[in-house]
């Protein structure tokens, strides 16, 4: 009787043990994770903290952040090669060229490395329906179309559901930008013609100076016609925030990301809000997943799976608490990997 109870107890315990408890078990000491964005950009800086947090918590052998790609696929490949030569064996990458990075993923996988596509998912237009076009082990990135839709809906609400909207974004020859443009158009279409897209300005995320000039020109030329601005790229977001603050025009702005200038403008009421992404979570969760794949402790149930790293609307109401929500979401995504998306020994 006692023996039966003991077996039942062990079985029950096995069922209720949280996945996170398992997470610490595998030996990741031989895994060295390299987080390599396409080049220097403020968006990727939280990867460093995320990677370090994962390395400490899960006892990963090492972590490094390398931003020497200078937005050139050849230079990024060279940086990756140099890291591989130094013994790094798991790579979380944001590819410079969405169509070329798959070749890099395939090359790295052929050499036995674990590869994650962070902050972007190359391949077909619909990353959820066409994950097979992505050659990395998994993708962990913002659903850019969804984030843009969320931002556009928020600014339309602020505009009172009518008026002229401007969309400021990044590189026109980039699948993510096209998804963002579609997200904004979808939100506008839902207004039944009450909101018009005045213009979409692309290719102004190269640097803050370029973005500032473009926004200043826009506001000078059409400032009085504009009721709302939605920005889906970092530099235009900062530029739009500064421009609206200086001109004091009654333009509603929903920015992107959480630059201190943007957060300060939300607190002061200069702009309505921002849609923040989750680069910390990409670094943190991505590091664990790559370590688990690299150590052969786990395998992906669906190779190349796309997972949304989350996007969050931040307004004056939650500007002080959104980071807690974001961290909790990251932990939940990690748990989902451990329990739903991967098969572990």
């Amino acid at each position, binding site marked *: 009787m006692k023996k039966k109870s003991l077996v039942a107890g062990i079985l029950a315990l096995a069922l209720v043990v949280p996945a996170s408890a398992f997470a610490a078990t595998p030996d990741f000491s031989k895994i060295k994770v390299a987080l390599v964005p396409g080049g*220097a950009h403020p968006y990727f800086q939280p990867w460093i903290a995320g990677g370090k947090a994962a390395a400490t918590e899960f006892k990963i052998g090492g972590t490094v952040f390398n931003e020497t790609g200078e937005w050139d696929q*050849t230079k990024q490949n060279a940086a990756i090669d140099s890291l591989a030569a130094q013994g790094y064996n798991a790579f979380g990458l944001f590819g410079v060229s969405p169509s070329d990075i798959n070749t890099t993923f395939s090359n790295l996988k052929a050499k036995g490395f674990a590869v994650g596509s962070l902050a972007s998912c190359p391949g077909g237009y619909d990353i959820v329906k066409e994950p097979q076009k992505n050659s990395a082990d998994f993708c962990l990135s913002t659903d850019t179309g969804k984030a843009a839709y969320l931002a556009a809906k928020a600014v339309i609400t602020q505009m009172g559901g009518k008026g002229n909207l401007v969309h400021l974004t990044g590189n026109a020859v980039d699948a993510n930008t096209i998804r963002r443009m579609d997200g904004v158009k979808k939100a506008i279409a839902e207004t039944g013609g009450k909101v018009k897209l005045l213009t979409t300005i692309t290719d102004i995320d190269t640097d803050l100076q370029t973005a500032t000039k473009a926004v200043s020109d826009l506001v000078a030329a059409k400032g009085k016609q504009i009721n709302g601005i939605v920005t889906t790229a970092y530099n235009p977001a900062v530029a739009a925030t500064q421009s609206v603050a200086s001109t004091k025009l009654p333009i509603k702005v929903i920015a992107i990301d959480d630059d201190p200038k943007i957060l300060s403008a939300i607190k002061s009421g200069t702009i309505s809000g921002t849609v923040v992404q989750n680069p910390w979570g990409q670094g943190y969760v991505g590091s664990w997943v790559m370590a688990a794949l690299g150590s052969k402790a786990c395998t992906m149930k669906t190779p190349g799976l796309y997972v949304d790293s989350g996007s969050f609307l931040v307004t004056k109401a939650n500007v002080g608490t959104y980071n807690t929500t974001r961290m909790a979401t990251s932990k939940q995504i990690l748990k989902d990997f451990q329990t739903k998306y991967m098969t572990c020994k």
Partner: protein
Amino acid sequence: MSPLTRIRRIVGDQRVVLTLLTVGLFLYFGMKNSAFFSTDFVIYPLLRDGAVLTVIGLAQLCALSIGHLNLAVGRMAAVAALAAGASYQYWHLALIPGLLIGLVTGALLGAITGWMIVKSQVNAFIVTLAMDFALLGFVTFIYVTFTGATAAFTTKPAGMEYWRNTSLHQYCIAGHCGPRVFPMMLVPAIIALILVGFMYAKTRMGRELLATGSNLRAAKLSGIPVDRRVIMAHTLSGLLAALAGVMLAFTNGSFTASIGSQFMLPSFLGPVLGGTLLVGGAVQVLGTFIGTMLTLVIRQGLSVQGIGLETLNIALGLVLLTALSLGQIQKMFTSIRMRGRT
């Protein structure tokens, strides 16, 4: 010639100094971190990238030989790659015919540029800059219009993988195979080096191009058809830029608008470090390869040492400045020695 004079002449040759510097730095980086000697992750990709950048250096060298600059080399490469990529995607051409379409496109763009310089009598700097802007808009328009969200031609003709991944090691004669570190991508670069070197060293055309670059007025008075030579130099520049663009597409795996966007600086670095004059009249074809490899060895060497972006660029700039000053330093020492004798 006495052995001492011969040694002095060899040591005075910029290419020899550059080669010694490149090999010295290669060994230095390798001794500091043995990872730098990795065949798969350092030497092979270094030579493969060097092949592409050498060809773009040669494209710039052709313009430099007549005292011109070609600021549109990168965009010519992009348009040529676009033409080749479209031919693979829409017409399903084999690798070589598609490559030829790319090369013809590049040569045509170069010829048009040369013709505009000759007819307008506007400085090549301005014409090629304008061409660069025009082609940038054209490339973006085509990719956005015809490829949608992918923004690339992704069809890979049979044989593309071969050029990217294989080495001479797969070719064996009497049980002896080629070196594993020798990428096949070096083959077109070597062919280009030989042909361009032969043209400038051995043919009348090459001599006339250099004479045009050295002194336009004197060349004209000597009966050289300088207008045609200017068009020829730019045609060659476009042709070689096209080759580099297609080679880069083969290396990276697809044909995108970003091809060539990073070509401008390396296109000057290789030839100028190698001894080609910016004012025209003198070229160093082999020096272009050595100069290109020097920059790549420095960059990858520092990268393997784990140096960050800012330090990497500062160190790269300092080493290149030193390399570019070598000629002046040599002259200074010679002058001091001569003064000591008198």
